[in-house]
């Protein structure tokens, strides 16, 4: 079963194409990363899949359905800096917003939704912060709040934009544990990730992106020095040192 199927996808803001002819498949029950340099179109790809950006050409399907029939099946975690954290609301309230989709028009969250929100808060270890104003949280706690809001949707497919941004090592491990558990439950998790060093450790598959698709598949096959050079314009230092001697030459060449 295919969780996410992207075909011939081209996206542009104005004239400039940001994603060019992307083909990509993510099977169900997989933890997948999207990796690429700044401005590669990672956020744009996720936003297009969840329907926030309309593509110029091509399509994205969720679990073999077009997006409009699969709204309930996806949960989206935006980049943390996409909202105003000074908004007058609490952690619990933000998590409760994850249930607004199932509630539909006019209905207010009831006992069931509150219960679910509490349980999810416990899962991400944020119970004690439930009634905090969201400004009074650390970056990692804000990220966990966003994660909880997505978890409470109980969606089979999750798409997260940089959930590890500004998060300490302990929280990162905790989040990875949660993502693995979701995967083991058979759900599909797609994460925009920046740290090349941990991609292979955390994820089963990876999409290497820079406007075009560079490569996709199991981490070991994708993260080759040649592919990375294509995506980043040079081999990231960490990789060059680990790779065969001649790749260091490439690094120096590109740098100089």
């Amino acid at each position, binding site marked *: 079963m295919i969780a996410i199927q992207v075909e011939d996808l081209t996206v542009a803001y104005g004239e400039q194409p940001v994603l060019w002819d992307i083909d990509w498949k993510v099977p169900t029950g997989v933890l997948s990363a999207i990796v690429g340099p700044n401005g590669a179109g990672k956020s744009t790809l996720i936003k297009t899949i969840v329907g926030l950006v309309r593509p110029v050409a091509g399509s994205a399907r969720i679990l073999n359905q077009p997006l409009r029939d699969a*709204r309930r099946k996806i*949960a989206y975690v935006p980049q943390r800096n*996409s909202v105003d954290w000074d908004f007058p*609301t609490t952690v619990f*309230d933000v998590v409760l*917003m994850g249930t*607004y989709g199932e509630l539909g028009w006019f209905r207010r969250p009831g006992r069931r939704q509150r219960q679910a929100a509490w349980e999810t808060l416990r899962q991400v270890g944020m119970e004690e912060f439930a009634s905090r104003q969201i400004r009074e949280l650390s970056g990692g706690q804000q990220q966990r709040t966003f994660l909880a809001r997505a978890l409470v*949707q109980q969606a089979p497919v999750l798409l997260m934009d940089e959930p590890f941004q500004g998060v300490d090592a302990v929280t990162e491990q905790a989040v990875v544990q949660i993502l693995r558990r979701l995967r083991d439950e058979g759900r599909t998790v797609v994460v925009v990730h920046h740290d090349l060093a941990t991609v292979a450790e955390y994820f089963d598959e990876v999409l290497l992106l820079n406007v075009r698709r560079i490569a996709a598949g199991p981490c070991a096959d994708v993260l080759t020095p040649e592919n990375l050079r294509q995506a980043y314009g040079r081999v990231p230092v960490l990789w060059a040192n680990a790779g065969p001697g001649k790749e260091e030459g490439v690094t120096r060449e590109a740098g100089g």
Partner: protein
Amino acid sequence: MSDPTFLLVAAGSAILGLVSGALGCFAILRKQSLLGDVVSHAALPGVMLVFLLFRTKAPFPLLLGGAATGWLCTMTVLRIVRSTRIPPDTALCGTMAVFFGVGIWLQTYIQHHVRDASQAGLDRFLFGQAATLLDRDVLWMAILGGVALGTMLLLWKEFKLLSFDPEFAASLGWPVRRLDVILMSALVLAIVIGLQSVGVVLMSAMVVAPGAAARQWTDRLGRMVALAGTFGAVAGVAGTWLSEQIQRTPTGPAIVLCATAIAVGSILVAPRRGLLWRFPAIWRRRHRSQLNSETTAIPGGSPQPR
């Protein structure tokens, strides 16, 4: 104080303060405070046009005309922002200037060419004159205000989500643009009901000031909206009373001054956020660090705990 006209006028002002204060919170939180300015200024040509075409003084058609052009102007701004590269503030100012200019032009034309224009009291729409409110005016204010507040209560969760995280709302499948238009329309109603007593020039202050004051006192959206409504209503009544006390003052400026006083007061004295409480804390901290540095300067001078 208890004469019936004052009670009527005060009731009208309370309604306008309540509704504009409550709905203004959403404009503030969405960083669209300028929208209040746009809607109120752009309502002027609508009011004038309806008078010119139908020669009526009835509140409902006049307010409806104001709402129509206010709404039209807002939608024009949204259109421009969405489909061009013109920045939002430029689009706001430019569009507003055109609408307001046409409004002033129409008003001048009416004053010079229409016989009973001065009796129609159209000039009250500029700076507000609550004393001219009649039963039917207040009735229509209550009805339109009720519609605006009712919409807000009915779509509370939707408006909250839209204001906090529109992208997440869209990812849940909410029709964000349609919600945007509905919220905007409710705000237009809230502004239009204040045109007679506050006027188009100052009405935007009634959208911003109560909400800004309320934000100082609470970190919950529900309480903020309730408090802003209360502040708005209090300012409405107090301002009306003030303008009755001082001869020949228009109510608009009086009401707006009261609302501003509440906002300034809140910014100064609100717990935790208030400036007055923050200054001593900062001073004390500086003082203490000075003391600390003095004690540590003495070798072995700081006492050991336990």
